[in-house]
C-alpha cells in the first residue's frame, strides 16, 4: 500500500524523468500513447472484436514465445544466436505431419488421422505427434550442437555464427527434399468452433486457440520449474555465468550445454506441431519467417532472459493481431520491426534486460 507521500514523490520522480528525457523519447511516448488511445477507442466501439483479436494475438504470441525461448536459452548459455533454431521448428511441424499421416519411409503404421477420425483418436494423434516432434527436434538440436558448434567453442564467435547460418540452410534444404517446395496442408483436427459459445457470442475464441494455450502453459511452467528449482537447472545457470567455476563445482559443462539445446529443441518441436495444427499449413521455409519473429521476440524481451522471451513473444503476437485488424495485414511486418527498433533505441538491452533470468531471475 502506497501512502500519499510515496505517491507524491513517485510523481515528482516521473516529472524529473520527463524533464530530463530527450525529445526523441518524448515523441516515442506521445506516439505510443496515441496508439493506445486509438486501440482503446476501438475497444469501446466494438469490445467483442477487440477481445477476440487480443486472444488471437496471445495465441500467436504463445507459439512465437516457445520458439523464442529456444533462442534465448542457447544465447544465455553459450552466447550464440542459433540461426538453425527456426528451421528446427519447421522440421518439428514436418515430423508432426508425418506422424499424423501414419506413414514413414513408405511404411504405413496406421491409417492417417484426419478431420473425420473419432475424438479419442484425434486426441491420441495430436499427443503422439507432439511427443515425437519434441523428441526428434530435441535430438536434432543436440546433434547440431555436437557436430557443428562444439568443435568451434573456442573459435571466434563469428565462426560459430556463420556455422549456425549454414546449419539453417542445411535443415531448410532437408525439409525441401523431404516434403517438397509447396505449402502442405495439415489435417484439420481441432475444431474452429467457439469455446465461449453459450456464454457470450461477442467474443470469439476457437478451440484451436485454447489448444495452443493448453499446450504452452504446462511447457512454460515446467521449464521455469526446471531452471529455477532442479539441480540440472542450477547447473545451467551456473554454466551460463562462469563455465570454469561451474566445472570446479563438478558440473559437466558439455552435458549441461547439451541439455540446454535439448530443451530448446523440445520447445521448438512442440511449437512446430502447434503451428501446423493452428494454421492448417506448413512449408519448408516456414522456419525463416517464424524464426525471425521469434528471434525478434527474444531480442525485444532481452536476449538470454526467459521471462523476456515470453513477454516479447506475446507483445509481438498482440501487436501483429491488432495490426491485422485495425491497420492492415500487409503492414504487420513493418510495424513489428519498427517496434523492435524503437525498443532497442530506448532500451538497448531489451524490455527486461539481457541474460538475467537464465542466470538467476531478474534484478534484486
Amino acid at each position, binding site marked *: 500500500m502506497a501512502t500519499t507521500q510515496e505517491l507524491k514523490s513517485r510523481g515528482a520522480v516521473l516529472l524529473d524523468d520527463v524533464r530530463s528525457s530527450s525529445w526523441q523519447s518524448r515523441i516515442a511516448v506521445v506516439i505510443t500513447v496515441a496508439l493506445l488511445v486509438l486501440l482503446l477507442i476501438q475497444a469501446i466501439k466494438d469490445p467483442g472484436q477487440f477481445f477476440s483479436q487480443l486472444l488471437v494475438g496471445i495465441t500467436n504470441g504463445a507459439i512465437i514465445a516457445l520458439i523464442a525461448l529456444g533462442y534465448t536459452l542457447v544465447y544465455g548459455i553459450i552466447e550464440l544466436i542459433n540461426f538453425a533454431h527456426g528451421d528446427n521448428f519447421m522440421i518439428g511441424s514436418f515430423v508432426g505431419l508425418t506422424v499424423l499421416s501414419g506413414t514413414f519411409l513408405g511404411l504405413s503404421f496406421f491409417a492417417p488421422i484426419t478431420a473425420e477420425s473419432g475424438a479419442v483418436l484425434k486426441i491420441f494423434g495430436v499427443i503422439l505427434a507432439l511427443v515425437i516432434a519434441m523428441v526428434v527436434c530435441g535430438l536434432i538440436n543436440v546433434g547440431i550442437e555436437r557436430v557443428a558448434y562444439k568443435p568451434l567453442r573456442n573459435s571466434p564467435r563469428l565462426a560459430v555464427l556463420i556455422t549456425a547460418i549454414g546449419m539453417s540452410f542445411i535443415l531448410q534444404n532437408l525439409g525441401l527434399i523431404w516434403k517438397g517446395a509447396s505449402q502442405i496442408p495439415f489435417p484439420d483436427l481441432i475444431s474452429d468452433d467457439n469455446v465461449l459459445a453459450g456464454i457470450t457470442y461477442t467474443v470469439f475464441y476457437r478451440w484451436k486457440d485454447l489448444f495452443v494455450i493448453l499446450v504452452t502453459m504446462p511447457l512454460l511452467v515446467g521449464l521455469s520449474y526446471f531452471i529455477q528449482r532442479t*539441480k540440472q537447472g*542450477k*547447473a545451467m545457470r551456473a554454466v551460463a555465468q562462469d563455465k570454469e*567455476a561451474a566445472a*570446479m563445482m*563438478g*558440473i559437466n*559443462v558439455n552435458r549441461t550445454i547439451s*541439455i540446454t539445446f535439448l530443451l530448446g529443441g523440445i520447445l521448438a518441436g512442440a511449437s512446430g506441431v502447434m503451428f501446423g495444427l493452428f494454421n492448417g499449413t506448413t512449408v519448408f521455409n516456414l522456419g525463416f519467417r517464424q524464426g525471425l519473429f521469434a528471434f525478434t521476440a527474444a531480442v525485444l524481451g532481452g536476449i538470454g532472459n526467459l521471462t523476456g522471451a515470453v513477454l516479447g513473444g506475446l507483445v509481438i503476437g498482440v501487436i501483429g493481431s491488432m495490426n491485422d485488424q485495425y491497420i492492415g495485414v500487409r503492414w504487420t511486418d513493418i510495424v513489428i520491426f519498427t517496434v523492435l527498433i524503437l525498443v532497442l533505441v530506448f532500451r538497448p538491452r531489451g524490455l527486461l534486460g539481457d541474460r538475467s533470468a537464465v*542466470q538467476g531471475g531478474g534484478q534484486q
Partner: protein
Amino acid sequence: MSEARKEEVPNIIFEARSITKVFGGLVAVNAVDFYIPQGGIVSLIGPNGAGKTTFFNMVSGLLRPTAGSFFFLGQDVTRLVPHRRAQMGIGRTFQNIRLFGTMSALDNVLTGMHVRLRGGIVGSILGTPGVRREEKEARERAADLLKFVGLRSRETFAKNLPYGDQRRLEIARALASEPKLLLLDEPTAGMNPQETARLTQLIGRLKEEYGISVLLIEHEMRVVMSISDWVTVLDHGEKISEGAPAQVRVDPKVIEAYLGTAMTG
C-alpha cells in the same frame, strides 16, 4: 630433505611429479615435484609471476601440464577434466572471486553440492519424493555451511554481498562439494586485518572439523606462517625452497627472491 619427509608422512593425498608448463616460449612452471599429506595445510608462496596460479590451475584441471603427472588418492589424474576432479574431491576458490553473481548465497552453495546430489534429470522433472527429500536436505546442509563460514544473508544475490562475505561464500561453495583437498587461491586478498584473522581461524577449523587437506596460495606471510604445516616456495617457475614455515622464513634463497623482486619491480 623432501625424501626424508615422505617417510615421516606415509599418507599422501596429492602428488605432483616433475610438472612443467610452457606457454609459447615461456616456462611458467619448471619440473616441480610436490606433495600434500593427508590432512595437511600446505602453502605455496613466491613473488608475483612465480607460476603459483598456473600450478593451481593445473592441479584443478583448468590447464593441462606440458609434462609431468598428478596423482590424487593414488590415482593418475593428469588427463582428467575439471569436473571429474571435482567429483573425486578437489575443490577450489579463485583469486578473483568467481561466484555466480545473480544467484542467492544459498543457491551458490547448492550449486556447489551438484556432484553430491543423485537426483537425475528425469527425477528432477517429475519431482519424485526421493528427489524432493534430497533437495530439502541439501538446503539444510547449505544453510549449515553458510553458518560455518559465518554468513548470515542467505537470500542476497552473491554480487551484492560485501567483499569479505563473498570470499567466505566462495569457501562455503567449495566446501559444499565435499572436497578432500581444498585449493585456496589468495583467500585473504583485499581483506582487513580482522577479516584476515577470522579467515585464518576458519582455514584451521577446516582441517580440524572436516579433516580436509588444504593447498594455499597466500601473500600475507602472517597467515602462511601461522597455519601452514609445510611451505613450498616458487620463483620463476622453479621450486627454490621448501620446509616447515620457520625453516623457509630464514632460507637465504627465499629472502633473495622476495627482496630481488622488491628492488626491480
